[in-house]
């Protein structure tokens, strides 16, 4: 008997019991999942960060610079002290600052420049035909941008133009929802497959 499949099957059903209502069986599965996943994270980070990036390079290869992150990491523990608690803000400031610094050009390039440049297409195709889709993109982009214009009340021309933008956004939201149904259903089909095949051995 495959005890793994039995355990997995029972836990699968325990999680599904939440769909009826919150209950002790779900709560048990939830508590187990929380505990296991925290433990798993501890092991993973111990191996990939502490051992591989700190302990081995520092003690086996003598990369002394690594004392800095070691100290910064230890400073995090000052949170448990009332007097020295502010020390933990130094590693936090380093992480926040470094993240913000790389975010500026990265965000501008990926989120802004690339999107602008990908939206530009000639309104007349090579064959001399009017490019209706291109016009739709142009109007959609500009009107949605108008919706995100905060400096003025949305009245008059700006108001109506921004309103067109909301229609485009609704198309986007609706289409995205419809588009993702397939992958969401796939996850359920995957579990049903597991239950019927590996747990109940109903299907081969």
């Amino acid at each position, binding site marked *: 008997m495959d005890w793994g499949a039995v355990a997995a099957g029972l836990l699968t059903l325990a999680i599904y019991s939440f769909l009826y209502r919150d209950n002790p069986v779900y709560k048990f599965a939830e508590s187990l999942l929380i505990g296991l996943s925290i433990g798993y994270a501890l092991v993973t980070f111990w191996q990939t960060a502490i051992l591989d990036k700190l302990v081995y390079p520092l003690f086996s290869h003598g990369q002394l610079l690594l004392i800095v992150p070691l100290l910064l990491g230890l400073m995090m523990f000052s949170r448990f002290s009332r007097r020295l608690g502010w020390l933990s803000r130094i590693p936090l400031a380093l992480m*926040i600052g470094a993240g*913000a610094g790389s975010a500026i050009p990265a965000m*501008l390039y990926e989120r802004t420049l690339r999107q602008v440049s990908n939206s530009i297409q000639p309104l007349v195709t090579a064959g001399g035909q009017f490019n209706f889709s291109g016009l739709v993109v142009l109007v959609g982009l500009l009107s949605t941008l108008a919706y995100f214009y*905060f*400096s003025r009340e949305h009245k008059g021309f700006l108001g109506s133009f921004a309103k067109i933008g909301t229609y485009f956004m609704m198309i986007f939201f609706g289409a995205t*929802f419809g588009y993702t149904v397939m992958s969401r259903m796939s996850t359920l089909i995957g579990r049903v497959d597991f239950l019927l095949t590996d747990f109940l051995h109903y299907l081969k």
Partner: protein
Amino acid sequence: MRTSSLRLIVLFAVILPLSSFLIASPIIAADSPQTETAWFDRRTLPALIASLVSIAAVLYAVWVIGRKKHLFIREIPGLKAVEEAVGRATEMGTAIVFTPGYGGDIQRPTTIASMNILSNVAEKTASYDCRLIYPTHDPVIMAVAQEVVKEGYIKAGYPDRYNPDDIFYISSSQFGYAAAVDGIISRTRPASVFLLGTFEAESLIMAETGNAIGAIQIAGTDSTIQLAFFIVACDYTLIGEELFAASGYLTNDRVILSTVKAQDILKLLIAVFVLVAVIWSTLNPSSDWWKF
């Protein structure tokens, strides 16, 4: 410290190296052959120009527009609801659940924007004496959120009401976190749920559970796909940039408000750029100067 010395720091630390960098970069770029090891990577030139233009716009907005007496920002529907949401939780004597989503870490500006709203919500919950529960998947976010909430409680004048145990790390696994938040929502039955930050697939798992217990839900995210689910399942949704503007609107922070103005200036520039480029490409299909 404050403004004057801040400006000095900005001037020396940012403007000088950047401007010399900008002047020098085309020369360096023209001189050195494009190698994989150049000091200045020519492929990043568009990002560099965009960064400098943006930084200029932000500094202009903070120093010039920021001086104006009244900074107008259009109404954002979800924000009026924040007050209502806290009020309702107090009235009903229940808690508020606030969570930042699985997709973000502290590196992500969205998380910082979410923190600003959290700070405002914390001030309100402090003065109404309403419990604020903040589960997160990221221990760094937990640490920062504790600082933010503590500060909010101090600012509101009730430091003793702050309970660090209510701002906690719950699991690093996406669906461990989702299961835990679902459990918290269905057990504490909060009157209001705030889902603000970068969300992934867990968005709808949380939003539907919140909906099932009848909570007012205010969501906001920069994950475009999850926006669709929030729009369908939540009462109010801050769409993308609205989340960033919201933090200024709520805190009435002049700096944030003026940077929102800078964003508007840049949006105008982008609109003009797009129009010019579309006309240009229509008249001259072989051109591609607008390709990055």
